[in-house]
Protein backbone atom coordinates (compact mmCIF):
# COMPACT_ATOMS: atom_id res chain seq x y z
CA UNK A 1 0.00 0.00 0.00
CA UNK A 2 1.20 3.47 -0.81
CA UNK A 3 2.28 5.98 1.77
CA UNK A 4 -0.05 8.59 0.26
CA UNK A 5 -3.09 6.67 1.40
CA UNK A 6 -5.00 8.81 3.89
CA UNK A 7 -6.98 6.03 5.57
CA UNK A 8 -6.46 2.29 5.24
CA UNK A 9 -9.10 1.05 2.76
CA UNK A 10 -11.12 -1.93 3.82
CA UNK A 11 -13.20 -2.54 0.72
CA UNK A 12 -12.46 -3.08 -2.94
CA UNK A 13 -10.35 -6.23 -2.99
CA UNK A 14 -10.26 -7.58 -6.55
CA UNK A 15 -9.23 -11.18 -7.16
CA UNK A 16 -8.97 -12.44 -10.71
CA UNK A 17 -8.24 -16.15 -11.07
CA UNK A 18 -7.41 -17.95 -14.30
CA UNK A 19 -9.72 -15.89 -16.48
CA UNK A 20 -10.16 -17.02 -20.09
CA UNK A 21 -12.11 -15.30 -22.82
CA UNK A 22 -12.42 -15.96 -26.57
CA UNK A 23 -14.01 -13.95 -29.36
CA UNK A 24 -14.81 -16.52 -32.01
CA UNK A 25 -11.63 -18.50 -32.68
CA UNK A 26 -9.35 -15.90 -31.08
CA UNK A 27 -8.45 -16.41 -27.45
CA UNK A 28 -8.05 -12.92 -26.02
CA UNK A 29 -7.40 -13.84 -22.40
CA UNK A 30 -5.41 -17.01 -21.77
CA UNK A 31 -5.76 -17.62 -18.05
CA UNK A 32 -5.12 -14.30 -16.34
CA UNK A 33 -4.69 -14.06 -12.56
CA UNK A 34 -4.28 -10.80 -10.69
CA UNK A 35 -4.97 -9.49 -7.21
CA UNK A 36 -5.50 -5.82 -6.44
CA UNK A 37 -5.56 -4.91 -2.74
CA UNK A 38 -8.28 -2.67 -1.30
CA UNK A 39 -7.43 0.93 -2.12
CA UNK A 40 -4.65 -0.19 -4.44
CA UNK A 41 -3.87 1.37 -7.79
CA UNK A 42 -3.06 -1.12 -10.53
CA UNK A 43 -2.02 0.16 -13.94
CA UNK A 44 -2.19 -2.27 -16.84
CA UNK A 45 0.09 -1.56 -19.80
CA UNK A 46 0.94 -3.50 -22.92
CA UNK A 47 0.68 -3.46 -26.71
CA UNK A 48 -2.73 -3.05 -28.33
CA UNK A 49 -4.58 -6.32 -28.73
CA UNK A 50 -2.94 -7.74 -25.61
CA UNK A 51 -6.31 -8.12 -23.85
CA UNK A 52 -6.02 -5.21 -21.39
CA UNK A 53 -9.41 -3.69 -22.17
CA UNK A 54 -11.13 -7.07 -22.29
CA UNK A 55 -9.74 -7.95 -18.85
CA UNK A 56 -11.07 -4.65 -17.52
CA UNK A 57 -14.50 -5.29 -19.01
CA UNK A 58 -14.73 -8.76 -17.46
CA UNK A 59 -14.36 -7.19 -14.00
CA UNK A 60 -17.81 -5.53 -14.20
CA UNK A 61 -19.26 -8.36 -16.27
CA UNK A 62 -19.63 -6.34 -19.47
CA UNK A 63 -17.86 -9.37 -20.93
CA UNK A 64 -18.79 -12.79 -19.65
CA UNK A 65 -15.75 -14.95 -18.94
CA UNK A 66 -15.37 -18.37 -20.59
CA UNK A 67 -13.31 -19.75 -17.75
CA UNK A 68 -11.90 -18.79 -14.37
CA UNK A 69 -13.58 -16.35 -12.02
CA UNK A 70 -13.45 -12.86 -10.61
CA UNK A 71 -14.42 -11.85 -7.12
CA UNK A 72 -14.78 -8.55 -5.33
CA UNK A 73 -14.39 -8.58 -1.56
CA UNK A 74 -14.78 -12.34 -1.78
CA UNK A 75 -18.07 -12.20 -3.73
CA UNK A 76 -18.13 -13.68 -7.21
CA UNK A 77 -18.92 -11.34 -10.09
CA UNK A 78 -21.86 -12.52 -12.23
CA UNK A 79 -22.41 -15.80 -10.35
CA UNK A 80 -23.70 -17.04 -7.04
CA UNK A 81 -22.40 -20.08 -5.19
CA UNK A 82 -25.17 -22.45 -4.11
CA UNK A 83 -23.97 -25.79 -2.87
CA UNK A 84 -21.48 -27.09 -5.39
CA UNK A 85 -22.93 -25.06 -8.25
CA UNK A 86 -22.35 -21.63 -9.74
CA UNK A 87 -25.68 -20.07 -10.63
CA UNK A 88 -25.61 -17.31 -13.19
CA UNK A 89 -27.01 -14.14 -11.65
CA UNK A 90 -30.12 -12.56 -13.05
CA UNK A 91 -29.89 -9.23 -14.86
CA UNK A 92 -31.23 -7.39 -11.79
CA UNK A 93 -28.51 -8.72 -9.51
CA UNK A 94 -25.77 -8.11 -12.05
CA UNK A 95 -26.90 -4.48 -12.31
CA UNK A 96 -26.72 -4.23 -8.53
CA UNK A 97 -23.16 -5.57 -8.54
CA UNK A 98 -22.21 -3.09 -11.23
CA UNK A 99 -23.20 -0.15 -9.06
CA UNK A 100 -20.20 -1.05 -6.88
CA UNK A 101 -17.86 -0.88 -9.86
CA UNK A 102 -17.55 2.42 -11.71
CA UNK A 103 -16.24 2.49 -15.24
CA UNK A 104 -14.74 5.29 -17.32
CA UNK A 105 -14.57 4.68 -21.07
CA UNK A 106 -12.08 5.75 -23.70
CA UNK A 107 -14.85 7.53 -25.68
CA UNK A 108 -16.50 8.97 -22.54
CA UNK A 109 -19.92 7.55 -23.57
CA UNK A 110 -21.70 10.43 -21.91
CA UNK A 111 -25.40 10.58 -22.74
CA UNK A 112 -25.47 13.40 -25.32
CA UNK A 113 -29.11 14.35 -24.76
CA UNK A 114 -28.65 14.89 -21.02
CA UNK A 115 -26.81 17.78 -19.37
CA UNK A 116 -23.62 17.19 -17.38
CA UNK A 117 -25.58 17.19 -14.12
CA UNK A 118 -28.32 14.91 -15.51
CA UNK A 119 -25.60 12.49 -16.65
CA UNK A 120 -24.18 12.36 -13.13
CA UNK A 121 -27.52 12.25 -11.28
CA UNK A 122 -29.29 9.62 -13.42
CA UNK A 123 -27.86 6.36 -12.06
CA UNK A 124 -28.09 7.11 -8.30
CA UNK A 125 -31.84 7.65 -8.71
CA UNK A 126 -32.73 4.66 -10.90
CA UNK A 127 -30.07 2.16 -9.76
CA UNK A 128 -29.79 3.03 -6.07
CA UNK A 129 -33.21 4.52 -5.39
CA UNK A 130 -31.93 7.80 -3.98
CA UNK A 131 -34.13 10.86 -4.09
CA UNK A 132 -33.79 13.22 -7.05
CA UNK A 133 -32.92 16.11 -4.74
CA UNK A 134 -30.14 14.15 -3.04
CA UNK A 135 -28.74 12.92 -6.37
CA UNK A 136 -28.71 16.47 -7.70
CA UNK A 137 -26.93 17.85 -4.65
CA UNK A 138 -24.36 15.06 -4.69
CA UNK A 139 -23.98 15.50 -8.48
CA UNK A 140 -23.11 19.17 -8.08
CA UNK A 141 -20.62 18.23 -5.34
CA UNK A 142 -18.93 15.75 -7.67
CA UNK A 143 -18.90 18.17 -10.60
CA UNK A 144 -17.27 20.65 -8.24
CA UNK A 145 -14.70 18.04 -7.30
CA UNK A 146 -13.69 17.60 -10.98
CA UNK A 147 -13.72 21.37 -11.45
CA UNK A 148 -16.87 21.64 -13.57
CA UNK A 149 -19.52 22.99 -11.23
CA UNK A 150 -20.15 25.99 -13.49
CA UNK A 151 -20.78 23.72 -16.50
CA UNK A 152 -23.46 21.61 -14.79
CA UNK A 153 -26.16 22.60 -17.28
CA UNK A 154 -24.01 22.19 -20.40
CA UNK A 155 -24.66 19.33 -22.82
CA UNK A 156 -21.67 17.04 -23.50
CA UNK A 157 -21.21 18.41 -27.04
CA UNK A 158 -20.76 21.88 -25.59
CA UNK A 159 -17.78 20.63 -23.55
CA UNK A 160 -14.19 19.93 -24.54
CA UNK A 161 -12.93 16.33 -24.59
CA UNK A 162 -11.12 16.78 -21.28
CA UNK A 163 -14.21 18.28 -19.66
CA UNK A 164 -16.37 15.45 -21.00
CA UNK A 165 -14.05 12.85 -19.52
CA UNK A 166 -14.10 14.65 -16.17
CA UNK A 167 -17.92 14.58 -16.22
CA UNK A 168 -17.69 10.85 -17.00
CA UNK A 169 -15.48 10.37 -13.94
CA UNK A 170 -17.96 12.30 -11.78
CA UNK A 171 -20.73 10.09 -13.20
CA UNK A 172 -18.83 6.94 -12.21
CA UNK A 173 -18.19 8.35 -8.73
CA UNK A 174 -21.86 9.17 -8.16
CA UNK A 175 -22.61 5.56 -7.18
CA UNK A 176 -19.86 5.54 -4.51
CA UNK A 177 -18.17 2.54 -6.11
CA UNK A 178 -15.62 0.39 -4.29
CA UNK A 179 -13.68 0.04 -7.50
CA UNK A 180 -13.11 2.31 -10.47
CA UNK A 181 -12.09 0.95 -13.87
CA UNK A 182 -10.45 3.28 -16.39
CA UNK A 183 -10.28 2.07 -19.99
CA UNK A 184 -7.65 4.25 -21.68
CA UNK A 185 -9.24 7.40 -20.26
CA UNK A 186 -6.96 9.82 -22.13
CA UNK A 187 -6.50 8.07 -25.49
CA UNK A 188 -9.23 10.09 -27.23
CA UNK A 189 -7.97 13.42 -25.93
CA UNK A 190 -5.82 16.12 -27.48
CA UNK A 191 -2.39 16.17 -25.79
CA UNK A 192 -3.00 19.46 -23.99
CA UNK A 193 -6.19 18.08 -22.39
CA UNK A 194 -4.63 14.87 -21.04
CA UNK A 195 -3.29 16.37 -17.83
CA UNK A 196 -6.56 17.81 -16.54
CA UNK A 197 -7.99 14.26 -16.60
CA UNK A 198 -4.88 12.64 -15.14
CA UNK A 199 -4.89 15.18 -12.30
CA UNK A 200 -8.40 14.13 -11.34
CA UNK A 201 -7.37 10.45 -11.36
CA UNK A 202 -4.30 11.27 -9.23
CA UNK A 203 -6.61 12.80 -6.65
CA UNK A 204 -8.77 9.67 -6.69
CA UNK A 205 -5.73 7.48 -6.16
CA UNK A 206 -5.35 9.05 -2.72
CA UNK A 207 -8.98 8.53 -1.77
CA UNK A 208 -8.87 4.84 -0.87
CA UNK A 209 -10.96 3.65 -3.83
CA UNK A 210 -9.41 0.73 -5.69
CA UNK A 211 -8.36 1.86 -9.16
CA UNK A 212 -7.58 -0.34 -12.14
CA UNK A 213 -6.31 1.72 -15.05
CA UNK A 214 -5.47 0.73 -18.61
CA UNK A 215 -3.34 3.45 -20.13
CA UNK A 216 -0.55 4.33 -22.52
CA UNK A 217 0.64 7.25 -20.39
CA UNK A 218 3.82 5.75 -18.96
CA UNK A 219 4.87 8.80 -16.93
CA UNK A 220 1.46 8.84 -15.26
CA UNK A 221 1.61 5.08 -14.65
CA UNK A 222 4.92 5.45 -12.86
CA UNK A 223 3.52 8.31 -10.76
CA UNK A 224 0.25 6.89 -9.65
CA UNK A 225 0.54 3.07 -9.63
CA UNK A 226 1.50 0.87 -6.77
CA UNK A 227 1.35 -2.14 -9.09
CA UNK A 228 2.22 -2.05 -12.76
CA UNK A 229 1.01 -5.02 -14.80
CA UNK A 230 2.48 -5.73 -18.22
CA UNK A 231 0.24 -7.78 -20.51
CA UNK A 232 1.02 -9.29 -23.90
CA UNK A 233 -0.95 -11.74 -26.05
CA UNK A 234 -3.63 -12.39 -23.48
CA UNK A 235 -1.31 -13.08 -20.58
CA UNK A 236 0.26 -11.17 -17.74
CA UNK A 237 3.95 -11.25 -18.55
CA UNK A 238 5.24 -9.38 -15.55
CA UNK A 239 3.99 -7.36 -12.62
CA UNK A 240 5.55 -5.39 -9.82
CA UNK A 241 6.13 -1.93 -8.45
CA UNK A 242 6.68 0.85 -11.03
CA UNK A 243 10.33 0.90 -9.95
CA UNK A 244 10.78 -2.81 -10.78
CA UNK A 245 8.85 -2.80 -14.04
CA UNK A 246 10.12 0.44 -15.53
CA UNK A 247 13.77 0.39 -14.42
CA UNK A 248 14.49 -3.29 -14.18
CA UNK A 249 12.12 -5.40 -16.28
CA UNK A 250 12.96 -9.11 -16.09
CA UNK A 251 11.20 -10.41 -19.19
CA UNK A 252 12.59 -9.77 -22.69
CA UNK A 253 9.04 -8.98 -23.97
CA UNK A 254 8.63 -6.27 -21.31
CA UNK A 255 12.02 -4.80 -22.15
CA UNK A 256 11.29 -4.78 -25.87
CA UNK A 257 7.89 -3.09 -25.30
CA UNK A 258 9.31 -0.34 -23.13
CA UNK A 259 12.18 0.28 -25.53
CA UNK A 260 9.52 1.08 -28.13
CA UNK A 261 7.11 3.19 -26.07
CA UNK A 262 9.44 5.08 -23.76
CA UNK A 263 10.99 8.07 -25.48
CA UNK A 264 14.76 8.34 -25.11
CA UNK A 265 14.30 11.53 -23.10
CA UNK A 266 12.06 9.74 -20.62
CA UNK A 267 13.91 9.68 -17.36
CA UNK A 268 13.70 6.32 -15.61
Amino acid at each position, binding site marked *: MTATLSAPATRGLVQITGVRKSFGPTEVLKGVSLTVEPGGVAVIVGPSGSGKSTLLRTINH*LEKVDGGHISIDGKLVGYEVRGQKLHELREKDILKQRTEIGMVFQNFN*LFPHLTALENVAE*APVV*AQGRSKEEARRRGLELLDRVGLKDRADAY*PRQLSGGQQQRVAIAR*ALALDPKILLFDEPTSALDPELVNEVLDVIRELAKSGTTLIIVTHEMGFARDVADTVVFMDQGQIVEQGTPQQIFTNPQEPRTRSFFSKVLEPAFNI
Partner: protein
Amino acid sequence: MSSAATKAAQPTTPAQPAAGAGLPPDGGGLPPEGTGRAAADYSSYRVVAAKHPWRWVGTAAVALGVLAVAWSLATNPRWEWDVVAQWFTAQSVVNGLVETLKLTAISGILGFVLGFILALMRLSASPLLVSVSWTFSWIFRSTPLLVQLLLWYNLGYLYEKISLGIPFTDVRFFEVQTTTLISQFAAAVLGLTLNQAAYSAEIIRGGILSVDQGQLEAAAALGIPAWRRSTRIVLPQAMRAILPTAFNEIIGLVKGTSIVYVLAYSELFYTVQVIYNRTQQVLPLLLVATLWYVVITSVLSVFQYYIERHYSKGAVRNLPLTPLQKARKFFATHAVTNRKSL
Protein backbone atom coordinates in the same frame (compact mmCIF):
# COMPACT_ATOMS: atom_id res chain seq x y z
CA MET B 1 -24.46 48.70 -69.03
CA SER B 2 -22.61 51.46 -70.87
CA SER B 3 -24.37 54.24 -69.02
CA ALA B 4 -23.70 52.56 -65.73
CA ALA B 5 -20.06 52.18 -66.66
CA THR B 6 -19.64 55.86 -67.43
CA LYS B 7 -21.35 56.73 -64.19
CA ALA B 8 -19.08 54.45 -62.22
CA ALA B 9 -16.02 56.15 -63.70
CA GLN B 10 -16.93 59.38 -61.95
CA PRO B 11 -16.44 59.56 -58.20
CA THR B 12 -19.93 58.98 -56.83
CA THR B 13 -19.34 60.39 -53.38
CA PRO B 14 -16.95 63.17 -52.57
CA ALA B 15 -14.06 61.79 -50.54
CA GLN B 16 -14.20 62.78 -46.90
CA PRO B 17 -11.66 65.46 -46.25
CA ALA B 18 -9.78 63.69 -43.45
CA ALA B 19 -9.26 60.39 -45.25
CA GLY B 20 -9.09 61.84 -48.76
CA ALA B 21 -6.25 64.19 -48.00
CA GLY B 22 -3.46 61.76 -48.72
CA LEU B 23 -5.12 60.06 -51.70
CA PRO B 24 -4.51 60.74 -55.37
CA PRO B 25 -7.36 62.70 -57.02
CA ASP B 26 -8.68 59.68 -58.99
CA GLY B 27 -9.69 58.05 -55.75
CA GLY B 28 -7.73 54.81 -56.45
CA GLY B 29 -7.49 52.23 -53.66
CA LEU B 30 -3.70 52.21 -53.34
CA PRO B 31 -2.16 54.42 -50.72
CA PRO B 32 0.44 56.84 -52.11
CA GLU B 33 4.04 55.65 -52.31
CA GLY B 34 5.20 58.16 -49.79
CA THR B 35 3.39 56.56 -46.86
CA GLY B 36 5.89 53.70 -46.88
CA ARG B 37 5.02 50.39 -45.12
CA ALA B 38 2.43 51.81 -42.73
CA ALA B 39 -0.84 49.85 -43.16
CA ALA B 40 -3.37 51.79 -45.23
CA ASP B 41 -6.38 53.07 -43.32
CA TYR B 42 -9.60 52.08 -45.09
CA SER B 43 -11.85 52.76 -42.14
CA SER B 44 -13.68 55.67 -43.79
CA TYR B 45 -14.34 53.81 -47.10
CA ARG B 46 -17.82 52.73 -48.03
CA VAL B 47 -18.38 49.00 -48.70
CA VAL B 48 -20.13 48.27 -51.99
CA ALA B 49 -21.80 44.83 -52.00
CA ALA B 50 -20.91 42.45 -54.87
CA LYS B 51 -23.55 42.45 -57.61
CA HIS B 52 -25.30 39.25 -58.73
CA PRO B 53 -27.08 40.11 -62.02
CA TRP B 54 -27.95 36.50 -62.88
CA ARG B 55 -29.57 35.96 -59.51
CA TRP B 56 -31.90 38.86 -60.33
CA VAL B 57 -32.61 37.48 -63.80
CA GLY B 58 -33.44 34.06 -62.31
CA THR B 59 -35.61 35.59 -59.59
CA ALA B 60 -37.52 37.66 -62.12
CA ALA B 61 -38.11 34.67 -64.42
CA VAL B 62 -39.40 32.48 -61.60
CA ALA B 63 -41.58 35.29 -60.23
CA LEU B 64 -43.13 35.68 -63.67
CA GLY B 65 -43.88 31.95 -63.79
CA VAL B 66 -45.43 31.96 -60.31
CA LEU B 67 -47.56 34.95 -61.24
CA ALA B 68 -48.75 33.24 -64.42
CA VAL B 69 -49.83 30.12 -62.50
CA ALA B 70 -51.56 32.19 -59.81
CA TRP B 71 -53.30 34.29 -62.50
CA SER B 72 -54.62 31.24 -64.32
CA LEU B 73 -55.81 29.67 -61.05
CA ALA B 74 -57.64 32.86 -60.15
CA THR B 75 -59.12 33.74 -63.53
CA ASN B 76 -59.89 30.40 -65.25
CA PRO B 77 -63.63 30.01 -64.49
CA ARG B 78 -63.43 26.21 -64.92
CA TRP B 79 -61.74 25.82 -61.55
CA GLU B 80 -65.11 26.92 -60.20
CA TRP B 81 -63.76 28.43 -56.98
CA ASP B 82 -67.24 29.41 -55.92
CA VAL B 83 -68.20 25.72 -55.90
CA VAL B 84 -65.04 24.89 -53.95
CA ALA B 85 -65.90 27.55 -51.39
CA GLN B 86 -69.47 26.33 -51.16
CA TRP B 87 -68.48 22.73 -50.40
CA PHE B 88 -65.26 23.37 -48.45
CA THR B 89 -67.01 23.66 -45.10
CA ALA B 90 -70.20 21.78 -45.97
CA GLN B 91 -71.41 19.52 -43.14
CA SER B 92 -70.95 16.28 -45.12
CA VAL B 93 -67.39 17.22 -46.13
CA VAL B 94 -66.49 18.16 -42.55
CA ASN B 95 -67.97 14.85 -41.34
CA GLY B 96 -65.78 13.04 -43.88
CA LEU B 97 -62.77 15.04 -42.71
CA VAL B 98 -63.41 14.02 -39.10
CA GLU B 99 -63.58 10.35 -40.17
CA THR B 100 -60.27 10.73 -42.03
CA LEU B 101 -58.62 12.29 -38.98
CA LYS B 102 -60.06 9.56 -36.76
CA LEU B 103 -58.73 6.79 -39.00
CA THR B 104 -55.32 8.46 -39.22
CA ALA B 105 -55.03 8.99 -35.47
CA ILE B 106 -56.20 5.51 -34.46
CA SER B 107 -54.23 3.52 -37.03
CA GLY B 108 -51.23 5.85 -36.67
CA ILE B 109 -51.03 5.41 -32.89
CA LEU B 110 -51.88 1.69 -32.86
CA GLY B 111 -49.55 1.12 -35.83
CA PHE B 112 -46.59 2.75 -34.14
CA VAL B 113 -47.23 1.04 -30.81
CA LEU B 114 -47.41 -2.35 -32.53
CA GLY B 115 -44.40 -1.35 -34.65
CA PHE B 116 -42.42 -0.57 -31.49
CA ILE B 117 -43.24 -3.99 -30.07
CA LEU B 118 -42.31 -5.64 -33.38
CA ALA B 119 -39.01 -3.72 -33.45
CA LEU B 120 -38.15 -4.88 -29.92
CA MET B 121 -39.06 -8.46 -30.88
CA ARG B 122 -36.82 -8.20 -33.92
CA LEU B 123 -33.90 -6.99 -31.76
CA SER B 124 -34.45 -9.58 -29.02
CA ALA B 125 -32.26 -12.60 -28.42
CA SER B 126 -35.08 -15.11 -28.96
CA PRO B 127 -34.95 -16.65 -32.45
CA LEU B 128 -38.74 -17.25 -32.39
CA LEU B 129 -39.58 -13.61 -31.61
CA VAL B 130 -37.13 -12.48 -34.29
CA SER B 131 -38.62 -14.69 -36.98
CA VAL B 132 -42.25 -13.90 -36.08
CA SER B 133 -41.49 -10.19 -36.29
CA TRP B 134 -39.61 -10.64 -39.55
CA THR B 135 -42.42 -12.69 -41.08
CA PHE B 136 -45.03 -10.11 -40.04
CA SER B 137 -43.15 -7.31 -41.79
CA TRP B 138 -42.49 -9.53 -44.77
CA ILE B 139 -46.15 -10.43 -45.32
CA PHE B 140 -47.67 -7.02 -44.70
CA ARG B 141 -45.08 -5.18 -46.74
CA SER B 142 -45.36 -7.50 -49.70
CA THR B 143 -49.14 -7.49 -50.17
CA PRO B 144 -51.08 -4.49 -51.53
CA LEU B 145 -52.97 -2.53 -48.87
CA LEU B 146 -56.06 -2.70 -51.09
CA VAL B 147 -56.02 -6.50 -50.95
CA GLN B 148 -55.46 -6.48 -47.18
CA LEU B 149 -58.46 -4.19 -46.65
CA LEU B 150 -60.76 -6.30 -48.82
CA LEU B 151 -59.53 -9.43 -47.09
CA TRP B 152 -60.28 -8.07 -43.62
CA TYR B 153 -63.69 -6.86 -44.71
CA ASN B 154 -64.51 -10.28 -46.16
CA LEU B 155 -63.08 -12.22 -43.23
CA GLY B 156 -66.60 -13.51 -42.56
CA TYR B 157 -66.36 -15.51 -45.77
CA LEU B 158 -63.22 -17.30 -44.53
CA TYR B 159 -64.22 -17.66 -40.87
CA GLU B 160 -67.93 -17.50 -40.12
CA LYS B 161 -67.49 -17.17 -36.37
CA ILE B 162 -64.72 -15.75 -34.24
CA SER B 163 -64.26 -17.10 -30.74
CA LEU B 164 -61.86 -16.58 -27.90
CA GLY B 165 -60.79 -19.66 -25.99
CA ILE B 166 -57.88 -21.94 -25.22
CA PRO B 167 -56.33 -23.34 -28.42
CA PHE B 168 -56.77 -27.11 -29.09
CA THR B 169 -59.47 -27.47 -26.38
CA ASP B 170 -63.24 -27.00 -26.37
CA VAL B 171 -63.07 -24.13 -23.89
CA ARG B 172 -64.69 -21.01 -25.39
CA PHE B 173 -65.05 -17.73 -23.52
CA PHE B 174 -67.18 -16.04 -26.17
CA GLU B 175 -68.11 -16.43 -29.80
CA VAL B 176 -69.46 -13.90 -32.34
CA GLN B 177 -70.43 -13.73 -35.98
CA THR B 178 -67.46 -12.36 -37.90
CA THR B 179 -69.65 -10.04 -39.96
CA THR B 180 -70.99 -8.31 -36.84
CA LEU B 181 -67.48 -7.91 -35.42
CA ILE B 182 -65.81 -6.62 -38.58
CA SER B 183 -67.63 -3.44 -39.58
CA GLN B 184 -66.31 -1.16 -42.31
CA PHE B 185 -64.61 0.89 -39.63
CA ALA B 186 -63.03 -2.16 -37.97
CA ALA B 187 -61.80 -3.49 -41.30
CA ALA B 188 -60.33 -0.09 -42.18
CA VAL B 189 -58.57 0.31 -38.82
CA LEU B 190 -57.34 -3.28 -38.86
CA GLY B 191 -55.95 -3.03 -42.38
CA LEU B 192 -54.32 0.38 -41.94
CA THR B 193 -52.92 -0.46 -38.47
CA LEU B 194 -51.32 -3.77 -39.39
CA ASN B 195 -49.87 -2.32 -42.58
CA GLN B 196 -48.58 0.72 -40.71
CA ALA B 197 -47.07 -1.48 -37.97
CA ALA B 198 -45.01 -3.40 -40.51
CA TYR B 199 -43.46 -0.21 -41.85
CA SER B 200 -43.01 1.57 -38.53
CA ALA B 201 -41.33 -1.51 -37.04
CA GLU B 202 -38.53 -1.09 -39.57
CA ILE B 203 -38.31 2.66 -38.95
CA ILE B 204 -38.07 2.22 -35.18
CA ARG B 205 -35.59 -0.64 -35.50
CA GLY B 206 -33.42 1.56 -37.74
CA GLY B 207 -33.56 4.35 -35.18
CA ILE B 208 -32.57 2.05 -32.32
CA LEU B 209 -29.67 0.62 -34.36
CA SER B 210 -28.40 4.13 -35.08
CA VAL B 211 -27.65 4.71 -31.39
CA ASP B 212 -24.02 4.05 -30.50
CA GLN B 213 -23.40 0.73 -28.71
CA GLY B 214 -21.25 2.60 -26.17
CA GLN B 215 -24.38 4.32 -24.84
CA LEU B 216 -25.89 0.97 -23.86
CA GLU B 217 -22.62 -0.19 -22.33
CA ALA B 218 -22.27 2.97 -20.28
CA ALA B 219 -25.85 2.62 -19.05
CA ALA B 220 -25.30 -1.04 -18.18
CA ALA B 221 -22.06 -0.22 -16.39
CA LEU B 222 -23.97 2.32 -14.28
CA GLY B 223 -26.48 -0.36 -13.29
CA ILE B 224 -29.41 1.36 -15.04
CA PRO B 225 -32.24 -1.20 -15.46
CA ALA B 226 -33.08 -2.46 -18.97
CA TRP B 227 -36.46 -0.72 -19.35
CA ARG B 228 -35.05 2.61 -18.20
CA ARG B 229 -32.08 2.06 -20.53
CA SER B 230 -34.46 1.84 -23.49
CA THR B 231 -36.77 4.70 -22.57
CA ARG B 232 -34.33 7.19 -21.07
CA ILE B 233 -31.08 6.56 -22.94
CA VAL B 234 -31.71 4.82 -26.28
CA LEU B 235 -35.15 6.01 -27.47
CA PRO B 236 -34.59 9.75 -27.02
CA GLN B 237 -31.48 9.42 -29.16
CA ALA B 238 -33.15 7.07 -31.65
CA MET B 239 -35.99 9.59 -32.06
CA ARG B 240 -33.73 11.85 -34.10
CA ALA B 241 -33.41 9.15 -36.73
CA ILE B 242 -37.02 7.95 -36.35
CA LEU B 243 -38.94 11.24 -36.56
CA PRO B 244 -38.36 12.42 -40.15
CA THR B 245 -39.34 9.04 -41.58
CA ALA B 246 -42.15 8.58 -39.09
CA PHE B 247 -43.73 11.87 -40.13
CA ASN B 248 -43.36 10.81 -43.75
CA GLU B 249 -45.35 7.72 -42.81
CA ILE B 250 -48.04 9.66 -40.92
CA ILE B 251 -48.46 12.10 -43.81
CA GLY B 252 -48.62 9.14 -46.17
CA LEU B 253 -51.23 7.60 -43.89
CA VAL B 254 -53.42 10.74 -43.96
CA LYS B 255 -53.73 10.42 -47.72
CA GLY B 256 -53.51 6.63 -47.59
CA THR B 257 -56.78 6.54 -45.65
CA SER B 258 -58.48 7.60 -48.91
CA ILE B 259 -57.99 4.01 -50.07
CA VAL B 260 -60.68 2.78 -47.67
CA TYR B 261 -63.26 4.23 -50.10
CA VAL B 262 -63.22 0.66 -51.48
CA LEU B 263 -65.06 -0.35 -48.31
CA ALA B 264 -67.60 2.45 -48.94
CA TYR B 265 -66.44 3.98 -45.67
CA SER B 266 -67.45 7.64 -45.64
CA GLU B 267 -64.15 9.37 -45.01
CA LEU B 268 -63.17 12.58 -46.81
CA PHE B 269 -62.39 11.12 -50.23
CA TYR B 270 -65.41 8.82 -50.39
CA THR B 271 -67.71 11.68 -49.29
CA VAL B 272 -66.39 13.93 -52.04
CA GLN B 273 -66.87 11.17 -54.60
CA VAL B 274 -70.47 10.68 -53.51
CA ILE B 275 -71.10 14.41 -53.88
CA TYR B 276 -69.60 14.81 -57.35
CA ASN B 277 -71.34 11.72 -58.64
CA ARG B 278 -74.52 13.57 -57.79
CA THR B 279 -73.60 17.12 -58.84
CA GLN B 280 -71.11 16.31 -61.64
CA GLN B 281 -68.75 19.03 -60.31
CA VAL B 282 -65.79 16.61 -60.35
CA LEU B 283 -62.76 18.91 -60.39
CA PRO B 284 -63.92 21.48 -57.82
CA LEU B 285 -64.83 18.72 -55.37
CA LEU B 286 -61.53 16.91 -55.84
CA LEU B 287 -59.99 20.30 -55.14
CA VAL B 288 -61.96 20.51 -51.88
CA ALA B 289 -60.50 17.17 -50.73
CA THR B 290 -57.01 18.14 -51.92
CA LEU B 291 -57.08 21.44 -50.04
CA TRP B 292 -58.08 19.65 -46.82
CA TYR B 293 -55.22 17.14 -47.25
CA VAL B 294 -52.86 20.10 -47.76
CA VAL B 295 -54.15 21.73 -44.57
CA ILE B 296 -53.65 18.54 -42.51
CA THR B 297 -50.15 17.98 -43.92
CA SER B 298 -49.18 21.59 -43.22
CA VAL B 299 -50.29 21.34 -39.61
CA LEU B 300 -48.39 18.05 -39.24
CA SER B 301 -45.26 19.65 -40.72
CA VAL B 302 -45.34 22.37 -38.08
CA PHE B 303 -45.64 19.69 -35.37
CA GLN B 304 -42.77 17.81 -36.97
CA TYR B 305 -40.54 20.88 -36.87
CA TYR B 306 -41.05 21.49 -33.18
CA ILE B 307 -40.89 17.83 -32.13
CA GLU B 308 -37.65 17.34 -34.06
CA ARG B 309 -36.29 20.47 -32.48
CA HIS B 310 -37.15 19.10 -29.04
CA TYR B 311 -35.23 15.88 -29.67
CA SER B 312 -32.20 17.66 -31.15
CA LYS B 313 -31.42 18.82 -27.60
CA GLY B 314 -27.74 18.11 -27.00
CA ALA B 315 -27.19 16.79 -30.54
CA VAL B 316 -26.27 20.20 -31.86
CA ARG B 317 -24.16 22.68 -29.93
CA ASN B 318 -26.78 25.40 -30.10
CA LEU B 319 -30.39 24.95 -31.10
CA PRO B 320 -31.29 26.83 -34.29
CA LEU B 321 -33.84 29.64 -33.91
CA THR B 322 -37.49 28.81 -34.56
CA PRO B 323 -39.16 30.74 -37.40
CA LEU B 324 -40.93 32.85 -34.77
CA GLN B 325 -37.69 33.70 -33.00
CA LYS B 326 -36.08 34.48 -36.36
CA ALA B 327 -38.89 36.86 -37.25
CA ARG B 328 -38.68 38.56 -33.89
CA LYS B 329 -34.93 38.95 -34.28
CA PHE B 330 -35.36 40.30 -37.83
CA PHE B 331 -37.83 42.94 -36.73
CA ALA B 332 -35.81 43.81 -33.65
CA THR B 333 -32.59 44.45 -35.59
CA HIS B 334 -34.37 46.19 -38.44
CA ALA B 335 -36.31 48.39 -36.10
CA VAL B 336 -32.99 49.52 -34.67
CA THR B 337 -31.45 50.28 -38.08
CA ASN B 338 -34.58 52.11 -39.14
CA ARG B 339 -34.41 54.23 -36.07
CA LYS B 340 -30.74 54.93 -36.78
CA SER B 341 -31.38 55.93 -40.37
CA LEU B 342 -34.16 58.30 -39.41
